[in-house]
């Protein structure tokens, strides 16, 4: 067990370090999310008051599309020099590869959100009046659920030559519960604060989903990375 976490942290550290040196993934994700915000400002007039209602949706659209970019890279970057094969034959549990990748992707997406959500609020002139700690909890839970399933399916899709095309098709139907829950909870916390009780139950749903799928992916990952 201890070994599992140690190997996972080493793999996550390796990904974060190589990202620190190249700054490839996070930069692309940040620019992309900026472009999405700009596109949205053309699609939905930011001066219009009704646009407040779509802000929660925008947060998650940005997160999902930016995260897909990162998820695509996370296993494809390992196919160079057969790194993935090296990881498989190394004396670690395959689950620790998964765990390490989840940690690294999760941190990438959190960095992107840390920048893009405030930018979204500023550009759309959105006054935050909701419950901040709960909002952060929703963002973290939702992102974690999305990333844990996404990393798993990215590993699955990386077996194919056309994995960039395959991943979104695999991922979106499976993560639909977490998207519904995250958008609804965010909507309540940002613009409909009276219904905070149902936000709590959405958060519980996200917690259950995360637990089920995280454990399932951790167990099944060894079948994904078999040679």
């Amino acid at each position, binding site marked *: 067990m201890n070994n599992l976490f140690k190997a996972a942290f080493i793999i996550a550290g390796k990904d974060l370090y190589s990202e620190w040196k190249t700054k490839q993934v996070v930069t692309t994700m940040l620019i992309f999310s900026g472009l999405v915000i700009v596109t949205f400002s053309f699609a939905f007039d930011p001066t219009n008051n009704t646009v407040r209602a779509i802000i929660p949706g925008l947060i998650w659209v940005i997160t999902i599309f930016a995260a897909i970019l990162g998820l695509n890279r996370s296993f494809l970057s390992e196919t160079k020099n057969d790194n993935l094969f090296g990881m498989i034959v190394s004396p670690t549990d395959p689950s620790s590869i998964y765990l390490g990748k989840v940690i690294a992707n999760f941190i990438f997406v959190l960095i992107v959100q840390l920048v893009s959500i405030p930018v979204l609020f500023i550009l759309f002139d959105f006054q935050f009046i909701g419950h901040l700690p709960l909002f952060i909890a929703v963002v973290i839970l939702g992102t974690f659920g999305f990333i844990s*399933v996404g990393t*798993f*399916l990215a590993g*699955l899709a990386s*077996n*194919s*030559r*056309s994995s960039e095309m*395959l991943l979104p*098709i*695999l991922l*979106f*139907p*499976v993560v*639909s*519960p977490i998207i*519904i*829950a995250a958008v*609804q909870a965010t909507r*309540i916390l940002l613009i409909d604060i009276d*219904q905070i009780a*149902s936000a709590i*139950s*959405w958060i519980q*749903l996200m917690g259950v*989903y995360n637990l*089920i*799928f995280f454990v*399932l*992916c951790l167990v*099944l990952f060894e*079948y*994904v990375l*078999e040679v």
Partner: protein
Amino acid sequence: MNEPKDLIDIPEESRLYKTLFYISIPMVIIALYLSFIYAPVERTMGVVQKIFYFHVASAWVAFFAFFIVCVFSIMYLVKRSRIYDVIAGVSAEIGVVYTAIVLITGPIWARSAWNTWWTWEPRLTTTLILFFMYIAYIMIRKMDGAWEKKARLASVFGIISFINVPIVFMSIRWWNTKLHPVVFGEGSDQVGGGLEPEMLVALIFSVFTMTVLYFVFLQKGIYIEKLKIQTDRLKEKMQERMIS
């Protein structure tokens, strides 16, 4: 870890297929009779309601097919025998066809019953997401590479997405009931409570018929898959002979 086994016997139409096929012919005729002539015409919806017998039956088979996919995916991962993978794949293909039938007949019926083509009701949305998951599953199966790899990955996805179906259903139900969580209890019941006994007979019979048809298709599909595998083997043998 078991080694993947490519144990496919030389294909032959199974006797089960023949029996089921000859049972299914009269059953389909009886089902058509029951639903179009025997069952009374519904008072408010009229003749359009007849679609209900095939709609519900197809929906049941679609979900059942996905259940079979999940069961045989688990069995493949445990036993690593190719036949389980073949069964899961064929079942998914039939499932896509039935889900498509559900998604086509549904709006036709809904147009006259609810006066709208589509609502984001839990059952409808879940079926739609189920349809997308089936397609994703088939896309994994059509991936490049060796069959062992594709079978393994498809099995993993089959398990994941089957477990996802009830969660999707629950979350959409919560979303749709205007954020007041319904954990247990009935949703909006499409049947509308009182069903005429003749209608119920027709419904149960057509569900049963569709299930038999599913097994007929399953047997036929497995037979075709086996033929494909056999053809590939013969081709390979031929190539080897031509090279040497």
